[in-house]
């Protein structure tokens, strides 16, 4: 298992110390869950949700009472600029 690859996919930073411990723990956990391979699941439909609800719609109209103001939306951002979120650079 390439733990740094998984960490990258999950957008997480794992340092060298954590790498060893996590590799150990994750390997053990994955060995544990691999027991599922022994269950016969031929012709079994997967379950994605248990309510049985389908196609729950709402009317396509604007509900002012549900809209947050720009100030509210920006209120927890560390960096804002002229009413925008400031996003870290994606160029590596």
């Amino acid at each position, binding site marked *: 298992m390439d733990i740094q690859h998984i960490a990258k996919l999950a957008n*997480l930073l794992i340092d060298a110390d954590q790498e060893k411990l996590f590799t150990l723990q994750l390997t053990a956990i994955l060995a*544990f869950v691999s027991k599922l391979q022994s269950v016969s*699941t031929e012709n079994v439909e*997967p379950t994605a949700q248990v309510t049985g609800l389908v196609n729950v719609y709402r009317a396509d109209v604007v509900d002012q009472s549900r809209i947050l103001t720009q100030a509210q939306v920006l209120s927890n951002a560390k960096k804002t600029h002229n009413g925008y979120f400031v996003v870290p650079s994606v160029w590596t």
Partner: protein
Amino acid sequence: MDIKDLTIQKALEGYRKKQFSSVDVVTACLENVGRYNKEYNVLLTVRDEKDIIEEAKRVDSSLPLGGIPIVLKDLFTTDGVRTTAGSKVLDAYIPPYDATVVRKLKDAGAIIIGKANQDAWGHGSSGENSDFGSTKNPFDPSRVPGGSSSGSAVAVAMGMALAATGTDTGSSVRLPAAFCNLVGLKPTYGRVSRYGIIAMASSFDSVGHLTKTVYDNALICEITAGKDPFDGTSAEVPVPKYTGKLGKTLKGVTVGIPKEYFEMKGMDPRINDLTRKALDTMQGLGAQVIDISLPHTNVAMECYYILVPSEVSSNLARFDGVRFGNGRDEFGAESKRRMMIGTYALSSGYYDAYYKTASKVRTLIKKDFDDAFATVDVIVAPSSPTLPFRIGEKSNDPLAMYLSDIFVCPVNIAGIPALNVPCGFVDKLPVGIQLIGPQWSEEKLFSIGNAYELRTNNRH
């Protein structure tokens, strides 16, 4: 005022008869906060005392929860009040809106005392995975209170509030309820709105609560349950007046006991004994007890620990440190583990073997319960295989911690409701049993729980 024994029912009666006021009750709660919060690490945020007392003075006492002090698990978004999810990522997050359940409780007259400590993001069964230190068990502070709704349970047990909200994705209301001698409900998935509840696993999360008695629990459920247009997964099933349907006997009730649970290695035999005793009591109340089988019990944990981390990895992707919160480096070890397991299980080349297979096993586990409920009204099982364990005992071994959920997490896989009720003590530590029912059977669970509670009175 001895708030440790005061129930919501008695408080409302006391207000009505003018024996005491909401100000008296919230003052007593705040005194207990002052007395115990630091040592037991229960509440992460306490609201301004002056605001609380002011609310208590002005509250409309005719409301269903008028003047009743409550605590909210810190996964519940509260407008203007810090909400951390037990995590350093959100240690300064102040939401701009209330969760639907929070709004419903406020509209019903409840007074919010504060936000409860918990395993970060709900990732835990003991309370030890909080980024702010573990909450302690009120019966023995060297032991865990159960998790992830750890602070919620301890707040009620120590008289800081008369009820507390929690969430239950795999154990998290029922285990702390069992470890702290409380009644804890995990409702049917979709019974209570998840809008504004910081998401852990979106097809598992159930919004529940902890109280001292079954009546109190039924009352809160009347307030929180119901379809919410803001939550597309909430169901259109009508909400009965649960408090009006609490039974006193179990005549005509068939109880099933899953043989796989009682054959489980690692279960404390004294818990087995107490559970048997509870079943004898139920028979004495008129119930018929039969053996049933839940054949896929032995793969439930494996199924859970693929599906839930997968959904977790997706839900926690939004915490980017840009729009809210701190950076992703602030996530604790358990959360990182879960996100990585989930990412792996969903990744190209592994999705079929892990996630898809687990989804199929989920169908089989759900079917086990559906088949069982064709022959029984309710399933009774222990809530925990062990007594509340010592802080630190399991925290170095993630797998050992996961196995504490063996009796509780199959319920979440199937999306059905379960109620923990206290059933006695071993070595002065509380033990709880679960009443598990088919979807939408909360009414039945409350009724059976009430009859059992009346007969046993396990508060002390």
